[in-house]
């Protein structure tokens, strides 16, 4: 990183040649990072590039295999998150870690309670909390409010207040805007500038380039656990940074597979759930790849879950090839739908079961003879799918949990292909997987569409939607606001519809 042009910025945090390995995956190799007082460093990279591992090492949640860290020039190797926090490193996580039933004050001081003889020193503590909240300047934030009743944006500020009371010198923001409405984003940026002026070093993790340009001074790009590039934002173009992130030409990442679009096969009308979706209507045609974009919480996942019958709809209908089916996954599977969950660990796959078990679970009938299951056929089928989708695994009996994210995703997709789904509902299928596998999945989607399958592709990453889809719909707050064919959209159009309310 070249910072010598600046008027001698003070290096607060320095991470040197950090490496970390989890089993067979090298999560980080030789990554170095410098954060300067009063500066904002953007940490950029795709999901799975190693950003969160690096931050977990900084917070003491993981130990590095090699490399060293210096905080204020002193060697720094926190034993755990609490040690890191007392040393002056605070992290504001994407998923908020708050106790919803406690008050704002209790949350802010959790683990840092000021006490004398085991009793909380209420007045001293209140003073400290109030000072922090004043700096944040949000009307909803008073020390006695119950945190569970606050908006997401205000909850995030509680996390920031936590960083402030611990006298943090380095504050990390982990994709802070991914779930925020527009006005809260503006407020957040103001707060970041205020922290900056107090001489705090800020690390800002995001993959929205526009945001990064607005708040950050320097950038560091990670790809597959390695440093792909670093420098000053004013010195590099967007295209430059994107190619550093992706590591290859856009053409080879998104292989174009020609496919043609036919008659409508799936019709969703006025679909309404308890909270979201809100009266969502659209139709998807045979051989079409239909993209669904929105920020976190926009209701894309909920829409897919309702279409698949996982959640009960309050109103509206889902018609497949002109027929209605009962709102149960088993019936929807019969209608030709297949769903790949965004949450591979929690829902998508049974991590402790074997590849063949996961792959065939949704369609075991063909293997049952007189009620008894044949193992050989199942193993054979699993092996065929593994070869077809180029799954890297030892054998079909291997536990799914031991595969990499990308290979797990291929098994999840193989399952709905094996269950002979004609309409594939793919929820963030490329999240958290390596670039090579991403390209595989994009190509597979194209090939499936060319073979007459229909795909609904939910994603938070606009470039992949623009490259792969025929049609894109944009959701916000549970509503489907706009559906256009891909040629009618620009990246900025999509974003501005997504953040409009």
């Amino acid at each position, binding site marked *: 990183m070249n910072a010598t042009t600046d008027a001698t910025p003070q290096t607060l945090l320095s991470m040197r040649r950090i490496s970390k390995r989890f089993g067979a995956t090298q999560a980080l190799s030789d990554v170095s990072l410098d954060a300067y007082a009063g500066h904002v460093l953007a940490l950029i990279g795709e999901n799975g590039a190693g950003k969160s591992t690096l931050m977990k090492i900084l917070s003491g949640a993981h130990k590095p295999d090699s490399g060293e860290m210096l905080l204020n020039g002193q060697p720094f190797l926190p034993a755990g998150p609490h040690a890191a926090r007392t040393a002056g490193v605070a992290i504001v996580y994407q998923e908020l870690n708050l106790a919803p039933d406690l008050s704002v004050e209790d949350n802010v001081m959790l683990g840092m309670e000021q006490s004398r003889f085991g009793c909380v020193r209420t007045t001293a503590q209140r003073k400290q909390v109030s000072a922090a909240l004043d700096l944040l300047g949000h009307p909803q934030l008073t020390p006695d409010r119950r945190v569970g009743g606050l908006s997401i944006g205000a909850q995030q500020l509680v996390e920031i207040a936590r960083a402030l009371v611990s006298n943090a010198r380095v504050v990390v923001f982990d994709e802070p805007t991914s779930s925020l409405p527009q006005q809260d984003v503006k407020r957040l940026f103001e707060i970041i500038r205020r922290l900056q002026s107090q001489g705090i070093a800020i690390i800002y993790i995001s993959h929205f380039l526009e945001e990064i340009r607005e708040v950050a001074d320097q950038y560091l790009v990670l790809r597959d656990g390695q440093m792909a590039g670093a420098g000053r934002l004013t010195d590099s173009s967007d295209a430059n940074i994107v190619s550093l992130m992706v590591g290859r030409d856009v053409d080879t990442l998104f292989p174009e597979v020609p496919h043609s679009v036919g008659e409508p096969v799936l019709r969703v009308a006025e679909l309404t759930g308890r909270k979201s979706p809100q009266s969502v209507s659209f139709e998807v045609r045979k051989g079409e790849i239909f993209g669904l974009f929105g920020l976190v919480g926009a209701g894309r996942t909920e829409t897919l879950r309702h279409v698949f019958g996982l959640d009960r709809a309050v109103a509206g209908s889902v018609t497949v090839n002109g027929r209605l089916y009962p709102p149960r996954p088993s019936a929807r599977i019969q209608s030709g739908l297949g769903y790949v969950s965004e949450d591979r660990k929690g829902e998508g796959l049974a991590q402790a079961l074997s590849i063949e*078990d996961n792959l065939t679970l949704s369609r075991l009938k063909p293997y049952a003879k007189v009620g008894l299951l044949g193992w050989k056929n199942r193993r054979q089928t699993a092996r065929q799918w593994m070869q077809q989708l180029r799954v890297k695994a030892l054998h079909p*009996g291997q536990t799914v949990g031991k595969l990499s994210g990308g290979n797990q995703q291929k098994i999840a997709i193989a399952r709905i292909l094996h269950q002979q789904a004609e309409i594939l509902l793919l929820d963030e299928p490329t999240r958290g997987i390596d670039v090579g596998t991403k390209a595989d999945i994009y190509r597979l989607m194209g090939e499936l569409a060319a073979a007459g399958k229909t795909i609904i592709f939910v994603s938070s990453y606009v470039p992949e939607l623009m490259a792969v889809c025929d049609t894109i719909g944009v959701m916000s707050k549970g509503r489907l606001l706009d559906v256009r064919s891909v040629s009618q959209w620009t990246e900025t159009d999509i974003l501005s519809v997504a953040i409009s309310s």
Partner: protein
Amino acid sequence: MRAEVESISMSGDQEEGSTRWWSFLQSLGPLLALVIVTLGFAMADQYWGEGHFSELRNVRVILVQAAPVAVAALGMTLIIISGGIDLSAGTASALCATVLASLLASECSGSFAVAMTLLAGAACGLTNGLLIGLLRIPPFIVTLGTMTIFLGIGKRIAGGSTVFVPSPPDWLPSLVATMPPDWFGWIPNIASGVWLAVGIAILVAVVLHYTVLGRHLFAIGSNESTAVLCGVNILKTKVIVYALAGLLIGIAGIYSFSQGKMANPVEGIGRELKFIAAVVIGGGSLSGGRGSVLGTLAGAAIMGVISSGCAQLEVKNSTQDIMIGTIIIAAVTLDQFRIRRANLD
């Protein structure tokens, strides 16, 4: 590219052989523990005891005592694999024994009484399954409730005292006879109840590994959301598994009646913990998704060996309890250690 794919699958076959062999070895862990515990007692008995432990007669006693625990624990294995638990198994088995005893006492035919007993067991399980599936209350809570309910029903049937049956049909006591007749020269003369338990174990193993139901149980236990997503009917599967387990508990009730030609509903209190212990010693995971027939059988046998061995050595009952408790903790610790190691690979 083709060459690459082939090379992957080639090396895969070799690896496959070795990991399968390894996982087979690991499944033998509880059996190994059984062998060690048995050898330990046999040697201790040679030194300090009267050397009766390793006599064939004592082996028969151990098997006959372990059989009812094993049968009920097999049902518990199914439930635990599906991620559930059945705390009512103990009082339900005593309830079944009470039903059998009172029917026989009122001069019903033996086969009718046994049929009703099995029905009672299945009904207990069905109740648990329906409550868990329909009310969506955790199995722990539901069966905590039905545990007491079954105890109450049993007491009502028994009329507040032990039900004696002076002369039940001969084949009932012979289920658990310690000196069974010599049927065929080439089959060791072990009580019919032990053979029945072996037969049931084979059936349960078939259900677990060669039926759709078995796959669904493992899937629900290891990740219920995934099972839902794959269109598995959770309610139906749960009701079936609890009812099946109930049937096995009914059989365990028949054994327990046969051992003393009497039944008392209060005897069932705490018995469920033995069943659960057998599953856990055998490598079953209380968080679901794991458990094996062979392991559970070994678990039941280990407890049988310990109680018999301690009796032979005239070790106090209290020491026995402490030993079994220690083995449970040791088994789970070893298992966790193994899983952690496996996850590091």
